[in-house]
């Protein structure tokens, strides 16, 4: 029994199918295209959908970055990267966002804006945003076809009635190109605005649920909201209304992980995006690195061009 696997692990027919599915997904922004989805040697739920996309799209001499929770060095990212290195001889890997041709990610979109020549693959556990209101896939397909998202909006409205707040924290339903609403994968709300008019092609792979969908470059992506209750990203202001800063690099405009310093027992905050944090290098915060998204600008953009379902 030889240990030599084909380039990209999957047999050529499987890769061909995934590429064709991907083309269809790009042609129908936000539409979940079913595909057969082969079993990969890692657990369903560990990014097998993203992995199949990466393995089908990655070519020799291209450069790959793999992150999980924003970190290149977290257990699952390491695992996926070493598997891809093992089965795709001749590719390069990097931890630097700007060096990568393909970025495979779980739960984050890098802070650094992506370019047109880059491609990001997001791992998806639940591809269908309607699953919270309709368990039957058959019925959901009809709802998507008719762009009938009324039950999802009612769910948001019920949240406001009960909690005076939309309680969806991540996997925030987002409408693509004025038709299909997608589950943008478990990225925080912080990352959702990065999908809108993204320069890079964004591909979503759900291995267990056997779906691929895409947001092509320069495509409109609007999180569902109401005129009077706008979409809001995570709030990192402290008790004194100061924006919390990353303890390591001092950045005040990135998504922060909070944890307890095991030595001092105090709560500290650090950039979730490891490469971003390294680039800030602990130097003072530079104004020109302000990301395009802040709470305020988002609220305004929602009011201006957002969904008027209030």
């Amino acid at each position: 029994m030889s240990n030599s696997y084909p380039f990209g692990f999957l047999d050529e027919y499987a890769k061909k199918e995934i590429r064709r599915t991907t083309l269809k997904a790009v042609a129908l922004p936000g539409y979940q295209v079913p595909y057969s989805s082969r079993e990969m040697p890692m657990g369903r739920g560990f990014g097998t959908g993203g992995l199949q996309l990466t393995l089908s799209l990655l070519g020799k001499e291209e450069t790959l970055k793999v992150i999980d929770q924003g970190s290149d060095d977290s257990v699952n990212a390491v695992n996926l990267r070493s598997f891809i290195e093992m089965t795709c001889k001749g590719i390069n890997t990097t931890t630097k966002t700007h060096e990568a041709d393909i970025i495979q990610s779980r739960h984050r979109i890098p802070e650094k804006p992506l370019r047109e020549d880059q491609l990001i693959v997001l791992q998806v556990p639940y591809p269908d945003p309607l699953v919270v209101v309709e368990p039957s896939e058959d019925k959901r397909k009809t709802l998507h076809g008719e762009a009938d998202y009324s039950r999802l909006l009612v769910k948001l409205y019920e949240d406001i009635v009960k909690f005076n707040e939309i309680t969806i924290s991540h996997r925030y339903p987002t409408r693509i190109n004025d038709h299909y609403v997608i589950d943008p994968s478990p990225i925080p709300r912080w990352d959702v605005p990065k999908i809108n008019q993204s320069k890079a092609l964004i591909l979503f792979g759900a291995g267990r649920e056997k779906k691929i969908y895409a947001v092509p470059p320069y495509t409109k992506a609007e999180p569902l909201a109401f005129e009077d209750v706008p979409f809001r990203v995570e709030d990192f202001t402290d008790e004194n209304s100061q924006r919390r800063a990353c303890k390591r690099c001092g950045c005040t405009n990135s998504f922060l992980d909070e944890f307890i310093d095991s030595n001092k027992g105090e709560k500290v905050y650090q950039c979730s995006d490891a490469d971003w944090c390294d680039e800030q290098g602990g130097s003072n915060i530079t104004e020109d690195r302000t990301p395009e998204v802040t709470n305020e600008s988002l609220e305004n953009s929602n009011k201006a061009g957002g969904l008027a379902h209030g």
Partner: protein
Amino acid sequence: MGYVAIKGGGQAIDGTKEVFDFLRTRQGDQASPLDTDTIEHQLRLLHSRVISEGGVYHPRLASLAIKQAQGDTLEAAFALRAFRSTQPRLVETPVLDTENMRITRRISAAFKDIPGGQMLGASTDYHLRLMRMDLLDESPEQFNAVTKKWFAERENTDIPDTFPKVLDSLRAEGLLPQIDTNQRTQNAFDITREPLIFPVPRSAALATMARAEQGSLLAIAYSNMRGYGDVHPTVAELRVGYLPVLLPHPITGEMTEIGEVEMTECEVVAMYESSETDDQPTFTLGYGACFGHNEVKAISMAILDRALQKGMKDGPSNPSEDPEFVLLHVDGIDSMGFCTHYKMPHYVTFQSDMDRLRSTQQKYTQKEPMS
């Protein structure tokens, strides 16, 4: 302190692989490594389960999968399934008739006597489940004596190559619907090449259940048996044996046997349905079949096939009749993978969850008027 709490992932993974492998050897100097033939024979039913859930008939690799997974059936089936992804689809066999099975066991619960006779074969059904203390310290001599005794006491009886199917006699009596010959000309749904898009044909349901996780199938079938459903099956025939696999000869085109696969097959008969048409009422059928010797699985599958056919026809009235509920939740590779993934870091989403809860709590304490 590291950058992120999860830094050093690479090293940690190497470490966990080493300790996992070490635990195999902890028995010490007296131990010798498990060889794959031993697994195939002495852990025959475990092997059967893995080959069936792995969905690729490769007895040697199934043994290897069990060895490297240290006996975890889900993990072992998983490794086999992943191996399958590296293999191209070269040819497809024609539909194989299970009447041609070389039988090792064959029973019917419907009739005392069946054409060809009942053949109990190897089964634990009528064993007393008492601990066999004599196996605790079994010596190689005692072990070999079992084989010798078996051959010495056996007379060379002629067992027919094939046995007729019990269902054929019921069909001849008009108690079963006639075979739908249209179905035979349709290609079976290939679940390894097509995703399930509901509604799915019956062949897709059968293929999904054939490689489903045994416990999952049993649990849903059991719910039907207990009252969340009303199949009330009778096992018309359960057979275990080796099915010859045929392919057209590359030059002559003649059907040629290329090997055989061990299979378990179960056909259940259920009560008749009221028919809206004027057709004569008949019993209804449920079918189950899988690689290896897995009787509980084949019976569960046959019951669920019947329940699902009913659900597809009249709409589901309980979970076991709902094709989406059953077929999307019985795959062991899918379900165990997703269950396991919850052990991965979820810092980002949890951060996001905390943000929502804090914001909601804040509004609650401020007792803001509702907007």
